[in-house]
């Protein structure tokens, strides 16, 4: 097991280098635009000022030198200053991150609460009316773009019923309801299907038939054996869907004015504030890679087959 953990961490290094390099290269290609953007509206600017600004931003150095010094800065938490506000990029990013993490955590929680019971229910009642209804609902949920769900919820809960404020005022739980619900609806639709498929596969295994033949009640089989062994896959699938959630928050955050990194990214893109976009891409990718790594390690730690198999060697 320890050997496996070390191996996985070593595999992480090229991936992280690749992520940072790709993000850096992309932004640097656009980087020349930042100068034009900065002076584009101010009429004629002499070449010396442009050159001075280039040198100040380090844009006159060779590409790889720029990358290495940028990477070094990144590791120290220095990602430059925003082109627009002039504030420290890393500080701005980390100050907005908790709001996004809160939203992500709430959405995952709500997804589990909605989709695990429904998925199990659908699997147990395989090919019965309730299964068809749930599958139909999951299909609808899968075909709804999340920004459309957001606007529908806004129209229904905030405008028609007036239960909630239309736009989030601060990161309070009350204003988190609608964004959480929006993200959870889209995620549950996908996840419920996966839960259903996993449980169904487990239910079709021979030991279930064996237990039924021995007269074990269905409920006991479900709770003691089937759910226990499906949980592993269910947890893994959930963790893997965090990636699409992290990307999806951007659009939802900017609709509901939720003050997290997603909204920050969308705002920065509108204002072409490259250092901030860069920070967003790099850190979201790193978070995602780490989440995937820990999921994988968790999977290995939880699965007795793998755990015992490795320790025997």
């Amino acid at each position, binding site marked *: 097991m320890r050997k496996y953990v070390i191996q996985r961490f070593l595999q992480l290094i090229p991936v992280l280098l690749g992520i940072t390099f*790709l993000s850096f290269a992309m932004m640097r290609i*656009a980087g020349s635009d930042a100068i034009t953007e900065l002076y584009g509206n101010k009429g004629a600017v002499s070449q010396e000022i442009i050159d001075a600004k280039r040198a100040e931003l380090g844009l006159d150095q060779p590409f790889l030198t720029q990358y290495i010094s940028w990477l070094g800065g990144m590791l120290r938490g220095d990602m430059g200053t925003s082109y627009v506000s002039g504030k420290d990029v890393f500080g701005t990013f980390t100050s907005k991150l908790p709001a996004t993490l809160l939203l992500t955590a709430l959405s995952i929680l709500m997804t589990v609460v909605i989709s695990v019971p429904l998925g199990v229910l659908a699997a147990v009642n395989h090919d019965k009316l309730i299964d068809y209804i749930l599958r139909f609902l999951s*299909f609808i949920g899968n075909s709804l773009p*999340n920004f459309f769900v957001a606007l529908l919820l806004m129209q229904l809960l905030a405008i028609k019923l007036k239960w909630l404020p239309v736009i989030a005022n601060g990161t309070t739980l009350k204003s988190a309801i609608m964004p959480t619900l929006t993200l959870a609806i889209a995620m549950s639709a996908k996840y419920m299907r996966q839960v259903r498929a996993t449980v169904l596969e487990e239910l079709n295994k021979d030991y279930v038939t064996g237990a039924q033949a021995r007269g074990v009640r269905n409920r006991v089989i479900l709770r003691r054996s089937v759910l226990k062994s499906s949980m592993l896959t269910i947890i893994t699938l959930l963790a893997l869907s965090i990636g699409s959630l992290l990307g999806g928050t951007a*659009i939802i955050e900017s609709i509901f004015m939720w003050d997290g990194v997603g909204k920050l*990214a969308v705002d920065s893109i509108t204002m072409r504030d490259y250092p901030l976009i860069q920070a967003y891409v790099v850190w979201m*990718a790193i978070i995602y890679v780490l989440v995937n790594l820990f999921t994988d390690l968790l999977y290995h730690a939880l699965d007795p087959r793998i755990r015992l198999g490795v320790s025997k060697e």
Partner: protein
Amino acid sequence: MSEPTVRIQKIKKDTVKTRLIVFGTLAAILLVCSVFCEYLTPYDPYLQDLSNAKTPPSAEHLFGTDRYGRDMLSRVIAGSRTSIYSTLLLVAIVTAFGTCVGVFCGWHGGWIDTVLMRISDMFLAFPGLVFALAVAGVLGGGLQNAIIALAAISWPKYARIARSQTLSQKETSWLKAAKLSGSGTWKMIFKHILPNIIGPILVTSMLDIGTMMMELAGLSFLGLGAKPPTAEWGSMMSDTRSLLATHPWVTLSPGFAIFISVMIFNLLGDTIRDYADPKNRMSC
């Protein structure tokens, strides 16, 4: 004993066929709509009529009018061209590019294969839309750039499928026979490998149409895709978002159009998958 099993299989196959015909027809109707949208719109989708602005849905204007008095039904129909065309274009680009890279990697092997596959790993390491947002941000808005952004994050999946399929085809006896009988590289790729691997790839791309349509509309909604006044469903929704409280039909009707199109393409994709795979046909 064997007879009932045969009968069940026949029934299942027939429902898949019926579904294929029904959803195929619906998708064809959508495509026809987008091709002939000029002739189907009751009003000019770009004609402004301020005296008639923000009217609720009526017999004259089924979906009402927006803040410039443009007929929403016409705009939704006109938007079908931009939205559906760009989605299909995106799927076609991603499928073609991914397949080329995958077949090349699988066929060639060696260090090029390793390098290209590591590059695809890099792209897969980014969480979904995050990278697309950044690409669209760097390139600036516009439908073309949104398509490039989404293509950049979607091709590795196709490359991987094509690569693994090519690798398994390379081991088949008929390919070895073709090689022994002196077929050239191109002949082997086009005559033996591509026809055998294209099935699963096309099924994947059919299943992806719905998702891609939503993602493209999402980018447009954020202002990173088609720009107003172009009629595109995502940008129409964001353009009219401020009217949601007072004139919900203006904002929501393009949303329903996206929803219905995505649903039709998803249903078609699922059906084609079931049709192509006998195992799924039985379990569904």
